[in-house]
């Protein structure tokens, strides 16, 4: 089938943040400095080209954007200041909106006001619902157990419902990613057992985000700061989710502190807190790492919500343990008012990459092996490939 060229498509991507793509003159410098590009997944130059030509289908079925961690080497090197790193970031945003069948992600990425309004609406609805529930069945003076304002069993069900919705959308998205990349975009057969062979990639990539560390660090500092922050956030995040979804009932009991359980909560809080501070600082200073030079408006939303959640969580915890139960209950409602939109927003925002990225790497590894198996790479020049 002939490929349809659509030079106008770039306008669409412009809204996702890829502003300088037309500057690119296809030199390939970016691909040569990228620590993640290799002979099978060649980017960012190729993605730049596909964008310039508006090859929507090629882009939709590509996994390359997920292999990029935005270390910014390419943008630093680019002789045309075409900002390939930012383009890859924009492609991720765009892909998220593509994976999402509801169209919500697209709305969010393209209109900040709509996103803010939606988040506010959900927050208010949550607040009203929880307050009514609390008043109707319990007392503001009781935090846990009999007659509690927000009984832990109720919260457990509530959390599971909200979390369930979130996961449903995320996995629907992941399914679409699978369909695009492994079915629609694959021209060669993929043996079914490869899916099992490479299964370990998912948890492995999710927890370590190992490839992030492979990004070269521009020399100066030995600490892979962005990676550390990423790691802190990702693990804080996962631990919190597990705690909330499974252990919320013993957690909410008190006022004694159940150390074997709470210690995890504290650690996760620290991880999230450090993440918050670092993100805010980087977004204000904006110079050190290229990836923070341009902040798409949707990123702020994430940070603000995360800060509210973390701070209100800590405050509520302290209030509860020190016996200010009324205040604790009110803070709890505020906390949940942030948690719910934040969780529900996940599948439609940049942060769905926490799931999409490991999935994409999993698929990419399968693709790689499938391609190698097909012996597609006959190498007449006998050259060493990275």
């Amino acid at each position, binding site marked *: 089938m002939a490929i349809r060229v659509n030079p106008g498509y770039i306008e669409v991507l412009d809204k996702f943040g890829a502003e300088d793509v037309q500057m690119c003159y*296809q*030199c390939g*410098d970016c691909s040569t400095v990228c620590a993640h*590009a290799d002979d099978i997944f*060649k980017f960012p*130059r190729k993605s730049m080209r596909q964008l310039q030509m508006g090859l929507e289908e090629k882009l939709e079925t590509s996994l390359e954007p997920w292999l990029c961690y935005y270390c910014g080497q390419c943008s630093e*090197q680019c002789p*045309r200041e075409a900002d390939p790193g930012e383009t890859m970031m924009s492609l991720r945003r765009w892909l998220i909106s593509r994976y999402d069948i509801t169209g919500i992600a697209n709305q969010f990425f393209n209109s900040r006001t709509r996103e803010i309004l939606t988040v506010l609406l959900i927050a208010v609805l949550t607040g009203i619902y929880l307050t009514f529930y609390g008043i109707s069945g319990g007392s503001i003076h009781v935090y846990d157990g009999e007659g509690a304002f927000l009984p832990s069993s109720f919260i457990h069900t509530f959390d599971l419902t909200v979390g369930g919705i979130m996961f449903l959308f995320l996995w629907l998205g992941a399914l679409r990613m699978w369909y695009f990349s492994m079915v629609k975009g694959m021209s060669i057969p993929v043996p079914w057992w490869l899916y099992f062979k490479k299964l370990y990639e998912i948890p492995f990539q999710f927890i370590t985000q190992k490839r992030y560390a492979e990004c070269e660090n521009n020399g100066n500092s030995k600490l892979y700061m962005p990676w550390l922050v990423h790691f802190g956030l990702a693990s804080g995040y996962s631990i919190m989710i597990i705690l909330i979804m499974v252990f919320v009932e013993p957690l909410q009991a008190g006022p004694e502190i159940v150390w074997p359980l709470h210690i995890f909560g504290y650690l996760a809080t620290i991880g999230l807190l450090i993440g918050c501070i670092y993100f805010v600082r980087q977004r204000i200073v904006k110079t050190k790492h290229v990836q923070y030079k341009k902040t798409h408006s949707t990123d702020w939303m994430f940070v603000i919500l995360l800060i509210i959640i973390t701070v209100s969580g800590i405050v509520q915890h302290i209030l509860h343990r020190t016996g200010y139960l009324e205040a604790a209950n009110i803070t709890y409602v505020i906390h949940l008012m942030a948690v719910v939109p934040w969780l529900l927003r996940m599948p439609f925002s940049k942060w769905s990459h926490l799931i999409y990225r490991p999935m994409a790497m999993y698929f990419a590894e399968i693709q790689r092996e499938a391609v190698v198996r097909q012996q597609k790479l006959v190498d007449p*020049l006998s050259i060493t490939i990275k």
Partner: protein
Amino acid sequence: MRTGVFFCQVDEQWNIDIDAIAKYTLNLPEVESVQNLGINPDIDLDKLSDSIKSRNLERIVVAGDLPGYFKPVFTKAMAKSGGNTKEVRLASFQEHGAKNGHTLDRAKAIVACATMGVPFSLAAVPGGNPVNHATLVIGAGIAGIQASLEIANAGKQVYLVEQSGTIGGHMAMFDKTFPTLDCAACILTPKMVDVGQHEMINLMTLSKVVSVSGKPGAYRVKIKKRARRVDEEACVACDECVSVCPIKVESEFDAGISFRRAIYIPFPQAVPNAYLIDEENCRYVTSEGEKCGNCVKKCPKDCINLDEEDQTIDLEVGNIILATGYELLDISHIDQYGYGRYPNVLTSLEFERLTNASGSTGGRIVTKTKKVNRKTKEESWIFSPEGIPPRSVAIIHCVGSRNKKYNSYCSRVCCMYSLKFAHLIKEKIPNVEVYEFYIDMRAFGKGYEEFADRIKSEGTFVIRGHSADVSMRDDQMFVRGEDILNDRLLEFEVDMVVLAVGLIPSPGTEALGRMLGINSDSDGWLSELDYNGNPTDTDKGGIYVAGMCQAPKDIPDTVAQASAVAAGVLGSLTSEKGIGNMSSLSLSEIEEKAKSVHTL
């Protein structure tokens, strides 16, 4: 003719008072309407053609810094409204030099000429001053040599000023020239000898212009001539002195890949063919006569005078030709290619000297050999004739050129000389692999595309795709590159990397221009009067540009421009009109002239 004038600008930085020009334009005869469309306007074709129609315009003048950008839409609109598309005229401020100081009046004059349909260059002809018949040429590369010879051969006096110890410029450093692969020396050396012997050429090496005053046709020039400290006439270039000189420094002529003494001759065919003392390094000079002086005792001709003093020379000339050439961009801070870190990463000029039969390896292309200083145990890498030839060489184009961080422009000659390098390597080393990494192949001249094809057919891997990564692992260099046409990412083992480094104007070009009242463009190249119509004259009457100093160009173009400049100079000497400054032409003078041309 009912004329409509539209102002549209491209460059926001361009500091020009459009409103004032527009006001002036409104009062011009035949002008019906004037519109200022602003910076980078989005012009609606339909609206435009409607407005042309409703105003019944017969001629349109598009005025601005680069009005050519907008010409297509105006032409379309004119056609749509049924007008004559030939009557879409451009009034280009950039092209006709409406900048720096005399911006406003010049811009007005440019617009006025366009509304009358008179080419600006026909209306703006400065003149009036009688012309002194002597000519000063600054810079003795191929451009300066060519211009000097043309003028001198016509029987006119030339003063040729060259800052280094020999004439010849960069071309003297080359082995072969593209695309013919002629021997550079065979073309250049006879011309150099000619210059040295010509009775109408007064050659001053080691000299610089320090001040210029006067007016077109009669410039007073002060030249500082550094002491050579060796008698040009008496020195027989026997090379005796060199053996006793204790000083060793990198040779400029060899692009730093070999060493010379403090008393030296740049290369054996240098003109003047005499040795000279490098006063910055000579032990006698730096110790103010306390130490050394070995060479004086050794010289059989007694021609070394270490105490010779600098001279200043005053000249009166009618015309001045600038031919100061170029130099390579300093790439020490472009670190992705490992230049300065890995011994076998070379700049293009270094490679030119390596492959030149008169170079330190006798023209053998070899990798550097490690040398350990016996006393200090310091390691250094040098080229020696016994070196090992590389098994594979990568040539990387566009290093610092077409790059927004360094030179945004194309240096024009690098693609071609890189291909030339590939040929020379293939010719000299059997079974060598040569990889050319290019972004776009600029084979722009007669026979150049064919040359490129020939190089490809010789087995060089010409790879569409740049490289920004040269690394070293276990004493082996690697180049990573993207082969875009074959859709693969590659990593090659290479023994040598040659960087096609971008070109910039010679140091001091801008200062020299300022001294003479000539502008430089944003990249530092000297500004010509009119890029299309008059690429040899400048804003100042009697001052011309030739060769690289005006813009990157290859030898054929340099020679052609130099000859054109000579024609201009000779023309000014024979015409009765005399010469004058473009910038001193007043608005009313240009208007008058345009009117008289217009009514013809």
